[in-house]
């Protein structure tokens, strides 16, 4: 266990080594948020309304969705697939050090840093635009936090699934690109899913941004247990897929390099 904590510690050190990059990445989340704020403000100033959302509701939704977008490990580190393809995985296989848990550790370390810095950036922003923000009550905050935690785990596992395709595909990068945009649209970080007009209830992606954001807004109170069950079910399926892809992938591994 200590070895994985050390790896997480190294990742934290690494992130703080390049402080400018860290700050720049985190402040970067303000720009799309501002874009949405100005867009919706202008759209609503004409007297229109989209779905059941007030301007404050839209602002609050985007606040949470973009915070999660910039914090959740959607791609679980792209160099994971590259290490498999290029033979870097070999250097893990010859050690009593799990490749998958190594990535869990460094992602956890990275997330701790990004989440902290993202919040530090968002809080002053939230204070400036406080009049638009719908503050969650304690219960809604706790429920939102719970769905965020499971969503984080789900994002990690889905990211692993995409990266582990490197065992089977000559080049998994095409998948990653499409997956990234698919996640953003189907996860609800671009537009709230209930405005899209087509049913997305059978896909797991809504648990990444849409459901947690709605939970923070207190809009899923009637169906918490059902959604929780479904969220955990998707996470379990993803975990099984990771396990399967990994075991089978190792047998196919050709260990390029040398």
């Amino acid at each position, binding site marked *: 266990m200590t*070895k994985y904590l050390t790896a997480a510690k*190294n990742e934290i050190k690494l992130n703080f080594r390049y402080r400018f990059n860290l700050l720049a990445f985190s402040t970067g989340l303000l720009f799309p948020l501002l874009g949405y704020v100005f867009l919706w403000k202008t759209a609503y100033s004409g007297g229109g309304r989209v779905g059941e959302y007030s301007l404050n509701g839209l602002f609050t939704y985007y606040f949470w969705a973009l915070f999660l977008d910039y914090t959740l490990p959607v791609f679980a580190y792209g160099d994971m697939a590259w290490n498999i393809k290029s033979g870097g995985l070999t250097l893990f296989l010859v050690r009593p050090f799990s490749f998958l848990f190594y990535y869990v550790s460094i992602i956890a370390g990275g997330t701790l840093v990004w989440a902290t810095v993202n919040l530090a950036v968002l809080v002053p922003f939230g204070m400036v635009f406080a009049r638009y923000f719908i503050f969650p009550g304690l219960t809604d905050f706790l429920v939102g936090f719970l769905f965020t935690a499971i969503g984080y785990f789900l994002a990690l596992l889905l990211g692993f699934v995409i990266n582990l395709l490197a065992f089977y595909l000559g080049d998994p990068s095409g998948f990653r690109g499409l997956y990234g945009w698919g996640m953003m649209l189907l996860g609800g970080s671009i537009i709230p899913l209930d405005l899209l007009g087509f049913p997305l209830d059978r896909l797991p992606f809504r648990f990444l941004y849409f459901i947690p954001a709605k939970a923070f807004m207190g809009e899923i109170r009637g169906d918490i247990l059902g959604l929780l069950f479904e969220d955990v079910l998707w996470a379990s399926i993803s975990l099984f897929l990771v396990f399967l892809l990994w075991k089978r992938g190792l047998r196919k591994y050709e260990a390029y390099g040398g």
Partner: protein
Amino acid sequence: MYSIKVKKLCKSYRKEEKGKGRFGSLRFFFRRKYREIHALRDVSFSIERGEMVGIIGPNGAGKTTLLKILSGVLYPDSGSVSVLGYIPTRREKEFLRSITYFTGQRGFLSLTIWDLPPVDGYELIRHIYGIPESEYRRRLKYLVELLDVEDLIRTPLRKLSLGERTKVELVAALLHFPDLVLLDEPTIGLDIVSQKRLWEFFRLYNEERRATLLITSHYTRDIEELGKRVLILHRGRLLFDGDKKGLAKGLPDRKLVKVVFRSSPPPSLRGWRIEGDTALKQVKKSRLSDELRLISLDDSIIDITIEDPPFEDVIREIFTRGEVNDEVFDGSEKRDQT
């Protein structure tokens, strides 16, 4: 007690054949052709604990594939492998704690702490292998002094030169004092001085730790540096397994004659290779006296030496024989040359 026991090992890969010509890429896009590459074919050998063995062969001979099977990274298609009493592909924790796999092309530190100093990586290694703190400090001091990298371990890895990086990576690879050290082209890209220092280090490590060392290289001069025993691989087959002195026995009965002249060698010398003021020729032992009698008439000679042929020539001959008749060469036999 055997450290490594390999019997009838086979491994193949499937490779795509790209289309040739101007529209080859387009054809390749729509229709694929594949071919089978036999990386290892019926390879068998045993190595005892504490031995230092060199594995040489041209590029594509199967050296790296062999090491990766021995370390449990690759699954063989057929045959049996036992390393330190374990089956490598099971990758049991105790097995992994007892081995190390080091390649000169890329290291564990480069993958995990590129932007950080090596000491951060060593801390990670310490926890991976569960090395107690005091023992870790002792081992680190030992390896750092042996490899003379004290000044480098606190500099970010990305700022080190290739040779410096190789050395700090080697520290990381040996911190847990493995019983079996698998070295895949460890000196690739290094200058001669760094290479020599590395060989001295490997010899010392083998002597002091009684660890089994397997070293691959496509530089035959590396095998001259260390390892009494040599395995020669070519196109997946084991062409030679034995004492490297035995290699020379099977070769044509030749000696290398070097003659140094006061100025440039006379133009009348036929069949000699001229390098500046030196003339060289490989001469059969039975013809040595005749050849020496011919050149001794020249009074501008200042030195004559007679040596065994260079090891590289020996190996080249083995490779060529491998291509022509695909036989396994046993170093205990002496071959006649007509």
